[in-house]
């Protein structure tokens, strides 16, 4: 990165910090991180979009089991600044719920939220279409939770120990 580019980046960081009312960190060349409160997520996303971060790449969730919280990360790309802004926010793990951003990114945000809802059980208020995306007829808990033992669940629900073909699977170390 040249000196001029570096200067430009620091400009963005300052501009974003004042605009979003939170401290933006320049992580690497093209990655910006900002941590916000979960109640401000729609506001922040809207402001970021108006500043030029108009492309929602994805919404991902991280399960912090010891802390008892989910971390939601909204990845926004800007064609103007050529950089990726990651908006991070933490919500309670026992009653995970957050406002939907479908008012800003519409259908694509809805699809991302559907995925998070299906795999982590997070409720997005304002999203009317939270039907399963990949898992049809799924009866178990959300499968991406860290305290969900998928191998145990699979052996219990989908295999039969009496079946000679499937007997060997039960001897695999859990």
């Amino acid at each position, binding site marked *: 990165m040249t000196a001029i580019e570096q200067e430009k980046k620091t400009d963005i960081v300052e501009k974003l910090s004042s605009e979003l009312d939170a401290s933006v960190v320049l992580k690497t060349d093209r990655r910006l991180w900002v941590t916000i409160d979960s109640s401000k997520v729609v506001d922040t996303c809207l402001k970021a979009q108006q500043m030029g971060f108009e492309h929602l790449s994805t919404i991902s969730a991280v399960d912090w089991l010891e802390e008892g919280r989910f971390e939601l990360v909204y990845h926004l790309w800007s064609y103007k600044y050529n950089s990726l802004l990651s908006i991070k926010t933490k919500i309670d793990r026992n009653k995970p719920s957050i406002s939907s951003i479908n008012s800003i990114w519409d259908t694509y945000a809805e699809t991302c939220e559907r995925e998070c809802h299906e795999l982590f059980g997070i409720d997005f208020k304002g999203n009317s279409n939270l039907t399963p995306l990949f898992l049809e007829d799924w009866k178990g808990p959300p499968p991406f939770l860290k305290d969900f033992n998928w191998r145990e669940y699979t052996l219990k629900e*989908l295999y039969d120990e009496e079946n000679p073909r499937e007997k060997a699977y039960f001897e695999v170390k859990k």
Partner: protein
Amino acid sequence: MITKKKVMRKFVRAVWVFNWFNSCGFTELCPVVGSRWDMERFGMKAVNSPRKADALFIAGYQTPKSIKRAQQIYEQMGNPKFVFALGSCTITGGMYWDSYNTIKRLEDYLPVFMYIPGCPPRPEAIYDAVFKVFEHVEELPDK
């Protein structure tokens, strides 16, 4: 009189195949269509509608979502119809045996005519399986 042999001979004249391939199943079986192994020399042809097909080739791991679509395809096919299961993932879940979202017993969902094991099965194995169908028909009683 319509015997089973007569019906089966209809099938054996030419095997028109409808493919239901998930994940790597498709890429691994592309050579069968290509010029090196060329399945058309045996009268096998990949068709684009299940209504024209005699045989359903299933490859790749099947999920509860995709197996429903496979069942719909099977229902649309005209008689006589045959299901060939290609590869270990399709038959038992294969390397995804401990996944919560794959099918473990294909025979619970579709009547399988022939299992072709392998990861993936070689083109020769597929021809061998189809050849066994020809043999099977010749062995059927005339009455």
